[in-house]
């Protein structure tokens, strides 16, 4: 009699132990949901590495998701073989067409000049205009030192930005080397920064 009662107690203990383990697992799952379940597309980060190459802008991790009002650090690396830039673009279609048209017009006006010289002329003429345009468009939306960061091959830099309004911001490269007369953006060299509230 005594041995059978002992065996019964053991079975009871084992049953309770198993159910406790299962409830603990359920609690862990619930905790995971409560901690990670509220994010839009993964947690917004404070630091992103942005790689420029022919002809892509890649971020790590992707996508670039940033919280409103929180400073974000971009480490920008040019891994390509030609000069690239990271530029905030208010209207990608318009800007790309503008640069392409300018390049074509300059080439028509000065047929004796080489491609490199025309690229240099386009850069020089539009740098001032574009910088002004971008700063005007981003005023009150983004805080940062520079919205047009140019990098030689192999060069890298660090820039800090603070986004003040939620939405989607476009970064692109408007250089012409290799894709003349189209800017690199038309080959797909652009990316989006998703700014969320929180």
């Amino acid at each position, binding site marked *: 009699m005594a041995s059978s009662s002992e065996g019964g107690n053991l079975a*009871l203990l084992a*049953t309770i132990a198993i*159910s406790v383990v299962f409830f603990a697992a359920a609690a862990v799952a619930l905790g995971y949901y409560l901690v990670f379940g509220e994010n*839009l*597309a993964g947690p917004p980060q404070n630091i992103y590495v942005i790689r420029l190459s022919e002809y892509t802008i890649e971020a790590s991790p992707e996508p670039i998701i940033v919280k409103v009002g929180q400073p974000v650090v971009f480490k920008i690396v040019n891994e390509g073989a030609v000069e690239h830039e990271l530029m905030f673009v208010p209207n990608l*279609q318009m800007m790309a067409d503008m640069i392409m048209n300018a390049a074509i017009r300059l080439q028509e006006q000065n047929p004796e000049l080489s491609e490199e010289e025309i690229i240099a002329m386009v850069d020089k003429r539009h740098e001032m205009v574009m910088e002004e345009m971008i700063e005007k468009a981003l005023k009150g939306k983004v805080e940062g030192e520079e919205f047009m960061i140019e990098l030689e091959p192999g060069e890298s830099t660090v820039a800090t930005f603070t986004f003040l309004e939620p939405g989607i911001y476009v970064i692109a490269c408007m250089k012409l080397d290799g894709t003349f007369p*189209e800017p690199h953006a038309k080959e*797909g060299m652009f990316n989006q920064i998703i700014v969320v509230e929180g």
Partner: protein
Amino acid sequence: MFHYPFDPSQFSETARVWWNLFGFYLTVAILLGIAVYAALVLIPFIYSRSRKAVDEIKPGVVPGERGRNAYLAVIVVLILASFLAVFVESYISVNELASLIEEEYGVTIEQLQAGEADGALVVEVRGFQWGWTFKYPNGIESDVLYLPAGRPVIFKVTSDDVFHAFSIPDLRVKVDAIPGQVNMGWTVPQTPGTYRIQCYELCGVGHAEMISKAVVLPPELFDFWYESLGEELVVEEGG
């Protein structure tokens, strides 16, 4: 490399419906689980306290004759009811999805399944050992999948060599890629972002690295990409 979202319901219409359905399945499973575990914990207590060996095994007496038919009936009804609830809910949500796609985007489920719809973007997906190629109606071939937000997308999935499975887990898309056969899959991406594309069929040594990315862009940005690369290709063909 990628963020891992837990709640995908806002990423695409298909994700929303499947996520809601999963939530319903989970609720049913939790309720049943509570009942089962409560019984598991309580029954040993009850029967170890009362010394009456009611359910003692007696040779020649079947369990049904022990006078507990009501319990058995409750359990059977519970199981059948949970099955029925899950089936009905699945039916309702799939129908909801079909009517939503038809009303909001003007595309019927039949069109989506046939791979021909005016309002939808049709992407030809080709799997190979080990990667993906995406071909668009205007001739762009890309190894990164670009998608417009808020527009139905149809995937025509096939394979060059062995069985693969094309999947974007966050958007709840999964289609088998089979050589010599075109399978349809579809979704309506909603939130711009970058999502993981992965092969879900063991296809060889490089299976684990058969990863690509789906970039969902706002419509105007997608149009910029689509038009500028499409033009380029036409120029190349002409010259």
